């Protein structure tokens, strides 16, 4: 804000600089109403509406956190399913020790973050495609390690304890609310991080780490923070998936398909924006509801659309819309009211 003020003063005019626009205020207002309505879904719509919405919420959380990693910080990890798995097994471990599985979601997220800390020491030495493949190696190591550990069920898997006390209706509603909270927290968390200076630093690092470090951005810290935050988000999603399936099996919970879906949602929706991943999540959700019966074709389409989107619309749907009309629903930049041009700082 200071910089903009100086720039305006130099031109000898007084301009008011603001983060909010009418569109953003309206969007935030309707978002609050929307969240309230979604929170009430179990009371008026029940199970048939909850099931698909849980999937949509996990998609939104996965997309938002992957975007923090790839979109803002330039870390294209294709191994985030490693932390989905860690979250699922983390939830199992705390649930076995008698902790309520719904409270355990937070614990699972923290466990994923703790596991990510030493891993980041190795992976963040790399960047670009090498970082991408090394993240796949880490996921493979986690999966093999789990299959070799009989205490967590080895190759056959384990069922999640601690859910017996809940009736099916209450359990479904609890999972629904938990998924809604995780999705909302993921989007809000990324929004707040990006607003609070981290976004500017991370974009600089994603654009050119050398130039960023010359300008005084602490490159290592930015990348570490993005990596840990994304692992925590993925851990929470993994716990949600375990709650929903009630059975944790290594090949399905460590499936690379989750990472493919993250990539798709962020690319198609709009990489490096707050709104884009949410839109991408809704598109993938629609695609999945429509095509999930034929598994392979669903993935062929997902991969193909991701390729086309990268080449034809590199900034995704929302990037296209926002650069065309200057829309911003989550205000992270600054704007000068009454002027057409729109700045995306942050």
């Amino acid at each position: 804000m200071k910089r903009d003020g100086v720039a305006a003063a130099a031109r000898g005019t007084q301009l008011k600089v603001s983060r909010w626009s009418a569109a953003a205020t309206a969007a935030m207002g309707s978002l609050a109403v929307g969240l309230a309505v979604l929170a009430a879904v179990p009371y008026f719509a029940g199970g048939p509406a909850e099931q698909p919405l849980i999937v949509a919420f996990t998609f939104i959380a996965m997309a938002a956190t992957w975007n923090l990693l790839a979109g803002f910080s330039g870390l294209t990890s294709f191994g985030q399913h490693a932390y989905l798995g860690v979250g699922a097994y983390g939830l199992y471990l705390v649930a076995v020790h008698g902790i309520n599985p719904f409270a355990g979601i937070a614990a699972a997220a923290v466990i994923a973050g703790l596991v990510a800390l030493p891993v980041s020491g190795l992976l963040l030495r790399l960047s670009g495609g090498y970082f991408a493949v090394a993240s796949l190696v880490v996921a493979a190591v986690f999966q093999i390690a789990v299959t070799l550990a009989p205490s967590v069920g080895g190759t056959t898997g384990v069922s999640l304890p601690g859910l017996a006390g809940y009736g099916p209706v209450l359990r479904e509603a609890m999972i629904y609310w938990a998924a809604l909270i995780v999705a909302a927290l993921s989007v809000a968390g990324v929004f707040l991080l990006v607003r609070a200076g981290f976004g500017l630093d991370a974009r600089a690092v994603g654009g050119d780490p050398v130039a960023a470090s010359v300008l005084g951005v602490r490159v290592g810290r930015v990348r570490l923070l993005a990596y840990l935050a994304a692992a925590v988000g993925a851990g929470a999603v993994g716990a949600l998936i375990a709650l929903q399936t009630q059975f944790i099996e290594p090949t399905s919970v460590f499936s690379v398909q989750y990472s493919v879906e993250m990539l798709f949602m962020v690319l198609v929706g709009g990489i490096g924006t707050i709104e884009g991943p949410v839109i991408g999540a809704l598109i993938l959700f629609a695609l999945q509801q429509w095509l999930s019966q034929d598994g392979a074709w669903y993935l062929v389409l997902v991969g193909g659309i991701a390729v086309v989107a990268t080449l034809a619309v590199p900034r995704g749907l929302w990037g296209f819309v926002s650069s065309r009309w200057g829309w911003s629903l989550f205000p992270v930049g600054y704007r000068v009211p009454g002027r057409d041009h729109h700045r995306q700082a942050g």
Partner: protein
Amino acid sequence: MTWVNAVLQGLLQGGIYALIACGLSLTFGVMRVVNLAHGDLAVCGAYLAMVLSSALGVPVWYTLPLVLPAAFVFGMALQVVLLRRALRTGEIATVLVTFGLSVMIENLLQEGATANDRVLNAGAIGVAALRIGGQITLPWLFTAAFLTACAVLSGLQLLLSRTSWGRKVRAIADDIDTARLVGVRVGPVFASVAGIAVATAALAGIFIGAIGNFNPLTGESTLIFAFEAVVIGGLGSLWGTLAGGMALGVTQVVVGELNEAYAVLAVHLLFLLVLAVRPAGLFAGGQQARTAQVTG
């Protein structure tokens, strides 16, 4: 003697990893593209050879004169149609595009060829073995794969150091802008490099398919192994890649001798260990290794 045998088998196995990895190393060194579909393209080579060899009723080796040129042309097309556009957008775009391509190939193969395990018809060489003394048995197939890898790597090295094409490639790898300034036409060089990379991948894929089972998802593990060979050997060095592949192969076979379940895990852990201790690779001079590292 079992151990000597295991180490020898591992060294031979490492040749195949190096054969896949050299294309990965070349495209990264010259084009700055990490092709995440590299392993899947190798598997495509194996499927193509399988279809041709059963259609013609000959062992898979006779299909090489058809498969390799096809793979070369496919690699050039890949560069011209997809990678060139992605490169204009940035390095991340190439990673995303090749990953999307990898997902498409794997699932198209599942649709077209089912998820069943396949094995290629290797003819008489597939079952023959070279026996040294009583205990040491070297399967001819492994030996042939190893010798092929050595021949391909030496050939590439010669091409790079002796021919005018190689001089252009090295100039581009060193500094693409200066190479352009002095009149090197980058487009054809990139296309030929991509063609060679895919052709070597297909050759490696045929050996993989002849030695063991393969299925549409073999590409992912193939990519990971090739990538590990490149990093362990040190980026940008073809002989380093061969050494890296051998380190992987020996680890895999020797640990597998102790306990089969830990063999792949041991390879991954070796890779992570190298990353932790010597991220520039075990056998590299260090100059090129910096390109993959983060500054600051």
